[in-house]
């Protein structure tokens, strides 16, 4: 951590009494892809806006490439490409004109901007639509155009806010692959915010889990899974033919099996968390009880579980969540 490209020091932002971002410290190295993960309203976008000097922090500092983003936003904006989550283009202009406009705003002369724009449109797969008006673009196409726009100024850092929103699955893979490639080949530093865990898992070197304005955890995925699931790092799901009652008479007995920590029964699916790989013992147990085992699935914890676990622990006391649940229940009862 010698010379971080992005260095946030005690960054805090309050909206009235609400603390959107609370004393955030974060360092991101050059060439790194960092994934900022968090539920809606966690303060991800606010953090990003502060990094670009688009909003002022209540306290703390945001240094990007060693420049204070609050006092010298223009210098930062020259080096940082930012793609907002709901991206819009001038609809009366063609995609190419939109890109060239951004290029010119960054001081690139007209003909070079034109050339770069055409190259980038090819790169993001919009080569055929360069002369179409952006009003006919689909959400995914706009997102791709957004990436081209970010790259036209040749940034040192790119910040992408929910970049994969609205792109089809094949496109997402390509998109993320491209980002990874760019980062590896050109030494670009990438900050990516998302609530799509799998996608983040695919490209990020490091992730930070962000909730209620605080960085709850930070590190690579392997490390996160180790710290969170030191106890039960394996999960076995067993599908049986007949649904089991919620209070299954053998559940206590199953808990006695070596290293089994917890189990959850939902109809004919039994999920068992265990500290070591005891799949054969569990299967043997089921067979001995005369149950028809239809499927056995063992998995290690990925980001999904980390996320799930984290927010399960975190949100239980959260009232808003409860409220929405009860509304949902009422809605169901009416039906």
């Amino acid at each position: 951590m010698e010379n971080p490209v992005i260095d946030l020091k005690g960054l805090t932002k309050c909206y009235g009494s609400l603390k959107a971002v609370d004393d955030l410290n974060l360092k991101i190295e050059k060439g790194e892809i960092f994934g900022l993960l968090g539920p809606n309203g966690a303060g991800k976008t606010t953090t990003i806006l502060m990094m670009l000097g688009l909003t002022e922090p209540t306290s703390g500092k945001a240094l990007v490439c060693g420049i204070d983003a609050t006092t010298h936003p223009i210098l930062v904006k020259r080096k940082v490409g930012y793609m907002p989550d709901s991206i819009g283009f001038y609809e009366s202009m063609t995609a190419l004109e939109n890109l060239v406009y951004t290029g010119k705003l960054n001081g690139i002369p007209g003909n070079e901007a034109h050339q770069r724009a055409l190259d980038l449109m090819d790169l993001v797969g919009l080569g055929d639509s360069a002369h179409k008006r952006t009003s006919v673009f689909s959400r995914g196409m706009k997102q791709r155009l957004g990436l081209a726009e970010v790259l036209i100024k040749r940034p040192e850092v790119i910040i992408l806010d929910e970049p994969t929103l609205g792109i089809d699955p094949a496109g997402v893979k390509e998109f993320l692959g491209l980002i990874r490639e760019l980062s590896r080949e050109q030494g670009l530093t990438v900050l990516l915010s998302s609530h799509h865990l799998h996608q983040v898992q695919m490209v990020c070197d490091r992730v930070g889990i962000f909730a209620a304005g605080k960085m709850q955890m930070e590190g690579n995925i392997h490390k996160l899974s180790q710290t969170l699931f030191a106890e039960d790092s394996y999960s076995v799901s067993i599908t049986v033919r007949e649904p089991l009652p919620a209070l299954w008479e053998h559940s206590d007995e199953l808990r006695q099996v070596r290293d089994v920590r917890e189990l959850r029964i939902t109809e004919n699916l039994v999920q068992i968390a265990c500290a070591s790989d005891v799949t054969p013992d569990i299967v043997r147990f089921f067979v001995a009880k005369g149950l028809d085992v239809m499927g056995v699935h063992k998995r290690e914890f990925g980001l999904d579980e980390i996320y799930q676990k984290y927010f399960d622990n975190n949100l239980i006391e959260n009232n808003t969540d409860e409220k929405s649940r009860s509304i949902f229940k009422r809605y169901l009862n009416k039906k």
Partner: protein
Amino acid sequence: MKSLAVFSKGTSIKSKPSADPSNAFRVVVGKEVADHIRSWRLILLLALLVLTFLGALYVSLSNIRSAVSNMQDPDSTFLYLKLLTTTDGTMPPFHVFLNFLGPLLGIALGFDAINSEQNNGTLIRLMAQPVYRDNLILAKFVSALMLVGTLFFTLVLLMIGAGLCITGVSIEPVEVLRIFTFAILTVVYVGFWLSLSILFSIAFKQTATSALAAIGVWLFFTVFYQIVVNLMVGALVPRQAILTETDLVGYNEMLLNILRLAPSQLFSDATTTLLMPSVRSLGPMTMEQMAGAIPSPLPFTESLMVVWPQLSGLIAATFLCFAYSYYLFMRREIRS
């Protein structure tokens, strides 16, 4: 998506920090002007304005003979000024039309300057580029004003040209001066409404709200303001019978000054003085002041002296709106 080779070939990612903000300002102005020119809105406004202009010109041309040959009128020698001001009563002259078309023009060009960008999600993208925020609002203002300026200068030049062709009378330099000053004054007047509507476009998130607010202010000043002022004066000022002449003049002056808080009043004062050289005062004059005055046109500089307060008032109001929009916009958080 193709391979990265396209990107790295000839276009390495090393950026060169060359962008200077004044360049960005020019780019934004260029884009804004292009946007306005391509928009239906400007075409409609242009059509409206040109129709009014042609109508007014037609009426004045058909009455020009009698207006110029009227020996009682000290302004009758100014043929081209007469072209702009003569009317037979069927239609108000062009400068009176402008009194309420000008605000419409300014409001229409500015009411969605910032909030439509914000609603389309382009504002945040723009703000993520190295562009100063004040440059953005200034560019919006300047680009619309450039168009308005071009428009009015074209119109008055067309009028002079048409006058030359039809009457064959050569134009006096002082008339050119007066007409051009009139054009500048009109641009300043439109500029005031433009900056007001840009202010509303920053203050209100919805374009419809900002348009309504601007039109509301416009209607208030053109229709209701005079009514309200007259009502108040009627209620507050004592009956005429018990007033001395100087009191009466004083009250009249006060009434006029209150009315001059409305930009349209400033504009009509200023245009009247500029286009009718014989107007020597905008307030009431006593018989003593009038005694000995020969009803003759004032020289241009004198007319300019008479309208100077009006002109500076309009410019000051424009700057006030602009400063307030700057204040609102500079530290605002921009979210898409």
